[in-house]
């Protein structure tokens, strides 16, 4: 539960006064709140925990961590794939 998953911010918008990002985790896209990482911009990699980005990380590190978490089979638990955000056209 205290795992954070690295993903890439592909789009940022403000919804109901909250800064939200579309974050790509491998093939899965999810919305994540970016209010705790005001420095994050599109193209950055963030560590996401229960729908909130908690830090900005280096791209290489992020990709390596993602591959490891995927191989450990823990992403399904953390990302709950039944609620995947459909990719926008």
């Amino acid at each position, binding site marked *: *539960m205290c795992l954070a998953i690295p993903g890439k911010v592909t789009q940022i918008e403000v919804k109901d006064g909250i800064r939200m990002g579309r974050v790509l985790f491998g093939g899965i896209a999810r919305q994540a709140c970016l209010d705790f990482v005001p420095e994050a911009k599109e193209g950055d990699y963030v560590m996401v925990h229960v*729908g909130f980005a908690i830090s900005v990380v280096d791209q290489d590190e992020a990709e390596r961590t993602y591959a490891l978490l995927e191989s450990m089979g823990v992403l399904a638990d953390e990302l709950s794939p039944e609620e995947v955000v459909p990719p926008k056209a």
Partner: protein
Amino acid sequence: MKYLDEYRDAKIAHGLAAEIRRRSTKPWVLMEICGGQTHTLVRYGIDDLLGNSVELVHGPGCPVCVTPLEMIDRAIALARRPEVTLLSYGDMLRVPGSGSDLFHAKAEGGEVRVVYSPTDAVQLARTRPDRKVVFFAIGFETTAPAHAMAVLQAAKLGLKNFSLLVSHVLVPPAIRVLLASPKNRVEGFIAPGHVCTVVGCQEYQELVKEFHVPIVVGGFEPVDLLEAINMLVAQLEEGRVGMENQYTRSVQYQGNQPAREAVARVFEISDRKWRGIGSIPLSGLRLKQEFAAFDAERIFDLAEVRAEEPSECISAEVLLGHKKPTDCPAFGARCSPEKPLGAPMVSTEGACAAYYQYRRHVAAV
């Protein structure tokens, strides 16, 4: 080790392990706090790889494991109310309370749902004004900012049908209990990297000063953990005591300021009971009076519940690092993830489940 060889940085990991074995003159007893770290250590056989240079004991950092039975019983009681929709994280639904679990409450007709984020719960409350949406908010410092934001968002939206059932605990008070125990054997700690990403390192620096014990903030990959262990062994062998940060790619000394501010705005520190450990003063969070309208325990009339742990379960000893899961006579025999006696066997972050999953029960028989 067969597990570690599957890891792409196996060479670096083996190099670090060799360095630790070379450096260590006695089997230093080290504890990783976080259940996610326990999972990596056992999954990759890191404890075996280090031989008798280090003894790794597993800490209480599994939020599902330390959520008291009474809180689970309260969640189940809420889920059984016809007007309530109860939401939480997946692991929480499988944990047995004193008589049942949330999955059974769902099977009996209760509206229980798994969500990925507390914001999903706010969204549901918004679209379903006919339902009283309760989010079972458990966890450590990592999860608290998300729960705080959910409350702030609900307040901003003027929602009257959203509340949290809060069972929040904090890591440092539990470490204090461990270190103050006459049974303590732990000589160095790996602090939880994502907790520290949020709260920073200062509290851990204070623990180092207070107890003269080395602490290294560590990440979650095999190489992170081996590096953190190497840093601890270096301190211990050189007679140094300090707070060091291995997980610099995510953790800054001051933590995440906006996240800390959100938590401070919504929550206040309170006493909390830990499953298997008991009540620890000032070891958790509760909603401030200002946010009482979002506090399920104040909104709903929840009867005082007293619950007893199954007598055979040694989860307290396991959570405090006094015993290993395989020291339990029920392990793998009368207790398994399918039929758990206690929470550490249920949660994917529990030490017993990690040992079971990676077949340590074979060795124990």
